[in-house]
């Protein structure tokens, strides 16, 4: 393998994981912007999507019905979570919300571990396992599915948010919750809806990557966190999240290829910490001293 084809190979794997992080990042920001809840169960929904599809397939359903059942179940779980765990909190604060979602994540993880054990699972690729050659690098058709998912999700969401009344109301309540509710927008219904949407998107992502990366009870936390990194670096906007996620994926792909595969996850978490520290720096002051 030449260096060039190696680079192409790492870039392909980077873009694949980058598009996954982009969709997950959008899930985080959907919930965060409307409800101000940092929903740590997002990663678990990704895991649930893959595991439920595997479970339904094991129960004898075909691929398409089991995918649909898995998505529906995850949406329901997400909505139930909002109703029974997030809404009844009496003194809502960032800390309480975060503890509740972390707790819910560990509950979901524990239930899956008890039910299906700690083995990794997989489902067959959607369109066979044909290998596509590209400049000496290889990729499977499933990777194209992942890229397609990213395109469909972003196009669909931007159409929904910009063209429909419901979507516009959603954007309005993301900008200012109080103002939106004064205009007669039912915020509590939106919170419910956003949790459902995030759960559904997370489940779809989980299903699409399962043939590539496999799934198990513990994949959720790290995958979800990298989506969060993308959302934070992207400033909670859709375009920003996508750009940040693709860059994060590439960075991770090259880091894993050229430095160490075991430290892959460390790189993206370091990016988050460094970015957060960088954010707090007083740039105006800095610029002023340069200008003078």
């Amino acid at each position: 393998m030449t260096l060039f084809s190696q680079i192409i190979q790492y870039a392909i794997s980077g873009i694949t994981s980058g598009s996954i992080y982009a969709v997950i990042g959008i899930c985080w920001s959907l919930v965060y912007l409307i409800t101000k809840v940092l929903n740590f169960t997002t990663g678990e929904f990704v895991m649930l999507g893959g595991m439920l599809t595997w479970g339904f397939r094991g129960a004898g359903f075909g691929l398409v019905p089991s995918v649909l059942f898995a998505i529906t179940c995850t949406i329901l779980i997400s909505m139930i979570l909002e109703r029974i765990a997030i809404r009844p909190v009496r003194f809502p604060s960032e800390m309480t919300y975060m503890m509740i979602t972390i707790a819910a994540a560990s509950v979901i993880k524990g239930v899956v571990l008890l039910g299906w054990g700690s083995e990794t699972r997989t489902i067959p690729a959607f369109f066979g396992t044909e290998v596509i050659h590209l400049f000496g690098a290889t990729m499977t058709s499933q990777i194209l599915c992942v890229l397609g998912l990213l395109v469909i999700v972003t196009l669909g969401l931007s159409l929904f948010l910009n063209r429909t009344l419901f979507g516009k109301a959603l954007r309005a309540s993301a900008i200012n919750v109080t103002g939106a509710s004064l205009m007669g927008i039912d915020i509590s219904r939106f919170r419910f809806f956003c949790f459902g949407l995030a759960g559904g998107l997370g489940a779809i992502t989980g299903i699409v990557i399962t043939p590539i990366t496999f799934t198990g009870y513990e994949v959720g936390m790290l995958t979800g966190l990298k989506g969060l990194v993308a959302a934070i670096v992207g400033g909670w906007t859709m375009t920003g999240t996508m750009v940040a996620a693709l860059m994060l994926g590439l960075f991770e792909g090259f880091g894993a290829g050229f430095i160490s595969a075991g430290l892959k996850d460390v790189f993206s978490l370091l990016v988050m910490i460094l970015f957060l520290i960088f954010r707090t720096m007083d740039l105006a002051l800095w610029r002023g001293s340069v200008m003078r």
Partner: protein
Amino acid sequence: MNGRPRQKLLWLILITVIVAIPFVAGSYVVGVMCFVAIFGGLALGMGLLLEQAGMFSLAHPTWFGLGGYVSGILAVRGIAPPWLGSIFGAVFVGIISYIIGAPLLRLKGYYLACATFGLLLIVEITMGQLGTLTGGNEGLMGIPPLSVGGLVLETDVHYYYLSWVLCLGCLWFLYNLMDSRMGRAIKSFNDSEVAARSMGINVPWYKLKVFILTAVMASMIGSVYTFYLRFTQPSIFGFPLLVELVTMIIIGGGKTLYGPLLGAFVVMWLREAIHLSLGGLLPRMSAQVDALFFGLIIIVILIFMPGGLSGWIDRFLYFGRQVFGRTDG
């Protein structure tokens, strides 16, 4: 406050009970109470950080693990005897937490939580990858027992007393700390950072100080834990421990200083009860399965009794004072 003599009495009762337990109860109870002391001491520091100082740092298990690793590695390599290694570990963690805390504590709320959560996972993964130094994911083996001079601490009872001395020492230290100038500063910037700043309190400096103090406490407890188990592993201080600590703080209630210790007592015995009653039913009992139950408890308590157990006790005592107490004025 007329609470001084009563507080002394409570301390006396607590210490008598702790000292008496190994003479009265069997080795099983002593073993569990030893864990109560270790994790209770850890939760005390984290509770102070979370609820008293309002800094949402999730990296507390990391300091626990790092302290244990440093003293364990020094002892295994024969570089320093265990007691000196524990001190080295504490100094090391103090320096690291200063270097990391100085830029990180500028963050607030969610962002601080995310960054420290990232730190927790980074340290866990890195420890698993440094195979030659730390023994990788299988863990560090062959750690000698703690010994000072000719005295070797080997039995459960030795470690029971050691960890309770450490734990109650931490509690006593925290009570004095919160009664000092620094404690008042902590309370004030938890209520309103702007107000505290305008009164001339150096908020970032105090935040950093609390952060380092609790990190060093956690590291010392971690060293004792490592020498007690004579083994350490990256997964010991990962996500499950975080959930466990949060459960302790929430059950006990972090608004009082003794709350997390109370929570640790409840959580440890609850875990034993769960293992005993469901051990036959559920084949795969592990830290992750414990985290399932703890997660449920966290959700229920945060929704139905946000003050935790100590919140209840305080309300009860307040009620008692209102009805039966002297009227001072």
